């Protein structure tokens, strides 16, 4: 198992946001976590990325304990984040944003090859490599955010609401990119409010509500459950 979370608990001070969450991501899998606003999806993904400390439970990548790894060393373990709202370095150029992605020594050594891969995946970024990232359109910014994570040569990519705030046509492009990322051998953990898209792309999915995982399984089965149909699809 690539990523393994057992009884993971994440809290902001006294307020626990994620309770005893257990989930797994296998090599080459796309796993989605769906749930309403405020369910703790971003908290969960930020804890896996090392941005938040876990207050309980286990978190392992390839069997190695991640809970004691300092935040700035998580990336070197093979985890890269595409954060909610993209969070680019807006006053830096597109290429500089990508270069921050390969800050970790191992990724830095592969810089030119990975950069070439990212530019062939997103040709428009090559054209705009010297533009300030903050001046790009929303869709292009999302490409930079995905490219930046790819530059880290990760084994697991965490996508936090990648479709948020994007035009419908661009949303399809983003999900195509997630598929291509997987084809390159990178596993994907995806958090999404766009339930249909997230289910369509995933091999397996978890449902997170009020900080607890209430249901999990293959998307076809989950979509049959009446609770999920009512709460997320409105049918």
């Amino acid at each position: 198992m690539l990523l393994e979370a057992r009884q993971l608990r994440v809290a902001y001070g006294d307020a626990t946001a994620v309770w005893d969450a257990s989930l797994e991501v296998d090599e080459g899998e796309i796993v989605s976590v769906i749930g309403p606003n405020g369910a703790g999806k971003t908290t969960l993904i930020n804890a896996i990325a090392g941005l938040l400390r876990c207050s309980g439970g286990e978190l392992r990548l390839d069997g190695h304990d991640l809970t004691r790894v300092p935040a700035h060393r998580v990336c070197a373990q093979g985890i890269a984040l595409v954060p909610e709202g993209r969070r680019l370095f807006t006053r830096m150029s597109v290429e500089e944003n990508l270069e921050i992605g390969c800050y970790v020594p191992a990724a830095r050594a592969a810089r030119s090859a990975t950069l070439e891969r990212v530019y062939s995946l997103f040709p428009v970024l090559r054209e705009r490599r010297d533009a300030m990232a903050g001046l790009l359109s929303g869709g292009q910014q999302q490409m930079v955010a995905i490219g930046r994570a790819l530059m880290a040569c990760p084994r697991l990519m965490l996508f936090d609401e990648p479709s948020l705030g994007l035009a419908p046509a661009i949303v399809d492009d983003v999900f195509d990119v997630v598929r291509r990322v997987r084809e390159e051998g990178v596993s994907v953990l995806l958090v999404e409010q766009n339930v249909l898209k997230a289910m369509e792309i995933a091999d397996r999915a978890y449902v997170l509500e009020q900080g607890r995982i209430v249901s999990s399984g293959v998307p076809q089965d989950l979509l049959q459950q009446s609770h999920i149909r009512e709460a997320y699809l409105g049918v």
Partner: protein
Amino acid sequence: MPSFTLLGQSLVSGVLVGGLYGLVALGLSLSWGLLRLVNLAHFAFAFLGAYLVYQMGTSWHLSPWWAVLLIVPLFFALGVVQHAIFLYFRVVELTSLLVTFGISVIIESALQWIWTADFRRFETPYASVSLKIGAMYVPVVELIGCIAAAGLAWATWAWLRWTYVGKALRATAEDPEIAVAFGVNQRFLSFLLSGVCAAYAGIAGAFIALISTLAPSQIWAWLGVVFAVVIIGRLGNPLGALIAGMLIGAAESVAMATFSPAWAPVVSFSALIVLLLWQPDWL
């Protein structure tokens, strides 16, 4: 109307003094722009450096150029210690003003205790040497100071622009959390930058010792104009600090020559207010 020679001479002197403004502004601009800490103690550090260069020169007969080699590592360590204190007390942008004001007062008192409140002048053989170019006189020490300021500003700009550490510093200034997620050791880099800023204060201090008269209360004399230079040059922009320093220096000097010396302080703040109201794209 003053003569062209006088105007030209005041322009040259102004640019040279402005280079020193830029040199003092450099470290302040970096810590404000990239660490989000407004380090008022930067001026006190510079004068501490100036007094140390003066002392080493007068009692050990150590040339200021050698003194700088001692000052740089010493002040780097001072900057690291200062940052450790900042982290320990969780100092942020606003509180840093108060804390570093306190540190400045402490250093000012220490300077006064050790060197008294008397004015001191570091006498060096080259202090009065000038090059004569056409009708203009160019004081050699100030020229070297200006060249040092330009070299340091350019090197810092290149460091921030082209190295991974420099890019990481800029990224951290904008979104520390995401920079850390990509492997940037923010804590280590903040110590490094704080050390570099203090070392720059030490270097500026060496030139202050060579160029101007020293008194402990002088640490406040530079505050206004250098703050204006830092803001006009854009926070965290080394070349901006240098260029703004030279422009302000030249404007001050020309104002002194055409109106009266009393007008000099008006120039920097007028420029600051005009630029803040106008807010051009490049600022």
